[in-house]
């Protein structure tokens, strides 16, 4: 068995003194683990940083074996954000969410493309709004997409302000009024009606976090990854104190 695929490094766990077991999000083979011999060495560690884009050649005698990877670095996304606390925390969070939420060896090409697109945008301005879109895209790729284009109660396409925490469908302002305290705010930037300012991003993170927990993590009784919690905590702190600037 052998294949060559585009991939993004999610995590690498030490295996013995010189090797690591790497988990990659591949374009055509989904979330896929493999042994990287020499991956714990100086050169291997640089390649195996979370978020790095690699060309992965996987080899095994039988398809059900762990197999070994030969990896070649294509783009070092991690190095670009090492000095930027929030972007780095978001990168760790995204990798941890994918690694924990996605099934092994099940191709989900839209999830790969969504993650790739967000990584490419990570050094840019709208990386935080992109992060929310990436998490909602991941939910959609795994079959739990939200319906944010029309009101679940009235069918209206205008004035959408909330989301039902049970159905994941948008609700317009009028229909939401009696249930406002039980609904999740729908940030305007997700439907092109408002800016992606820090307050709206915090609402967006709460929205995607609710559905990640409910749709993907509840089945295994697992909490959302600690890396995501740390990212949200840091983002909230910076959003609450804009004077410090958004790193």
């Amino acid at each position: 068995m052998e294949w060559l695929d585009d991939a993004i490094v999610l995590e690498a766990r030490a295996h013995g003194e010189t090797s690591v077991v790497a988990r990659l999000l591949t374009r055509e083979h989904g979330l896929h683990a493999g042994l990287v011999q020499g991956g714990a060495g100086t050169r291997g560690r640089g390649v195996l940083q979370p978020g790095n884009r690699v060309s992965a050649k996987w080899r095994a005698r039988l398809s059900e074996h762990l197999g070994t990877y030969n990896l070649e670095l294509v783009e070092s996304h991690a190095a670009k954000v090492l000095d930027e606390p929030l972007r780095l925390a978001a990168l760790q969070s995204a990798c941890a969410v994918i690694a924990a939420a996605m099934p092994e060896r099940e191709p989900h090409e839209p999830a790969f493309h969504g993650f790739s697109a967000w990584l490419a945008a990570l050094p840019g301005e709208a990386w935080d709004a992109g992060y929310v879109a990436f998490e909602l895209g991941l939910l959609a790729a795994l079959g739990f997409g939200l319906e944010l284009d029309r009101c679940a109660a009235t069918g209206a396409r205008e004035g959408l302000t909330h989301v039902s925490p049970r159905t994941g469908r948008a609700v317009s302002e009028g229909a939401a009024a009696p249930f406002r305290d039980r609904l999740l705010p729908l940030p305007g930037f997700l439907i092109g009606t408002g800016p992606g300012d820090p307050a709206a991003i915090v609402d967006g993170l709460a929205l995607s976090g609710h559905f990640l927990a409910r749709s993907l993590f509840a089945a295994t009784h697992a909490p959302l990854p600690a890396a995501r919690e740390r990212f949200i905590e840091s983002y909230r702190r910076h959003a609450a104190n804009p004077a410090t600037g958004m790193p």
Partner: protein
Amino acid sequence: MSGADLEKLIQLLAKLPGLGPRSARRAALTLLKKREQLMTPLGEAIQAAAASVQDCSVCGNLDTVDPCAVCNDKARDSHTICVVEDVGDLWALERSGAFRGRYHVLGGTLSALDGISPDDLRIASLVRRAHDDGVREIILATSATVEGQATAHYVTDRLASTGVAVSRLGHGVPIGGELDYLDDGTLTAALKSRKTL
């Protein structure tokens, strides 16, 4: 191979870094051939170290005295603390002779994969030291990896209330490194850390 004691010796040696079963057998044979010169003194040294070496209650270094020799050294700059991940990193910096301040060993990096949370690291004691010891600068010497730098950013956040200057080691081209052979990540980091001449 025979003898439970010999098997046990080989198994234990094989658990040491850099030694596999084959090299552990060779090491055991060498020890047995040099009982007086090597095996007995090694056994005694291991026992003595196990009994006397302890974590420094101030910085987390390993030493036979508490506080450790570095913390006790009055000649060192007590206003600067270099934060490292492990004692091995402290030893590496000491070998270089480039730093004459104090240290603080975190005991690892934040890692969701290994279940290491902020409470598992010696961050609270670092914040206390920053408040108490008249410290002026803290140098974060964590690895240039995602986990290492995420830990550095977390520590920086925690130190924000102390008012102490926080810096980190430079990242970039190693001594003797040629640009043509460097990976993209190192080159990116080097460009970001460039200095005006």
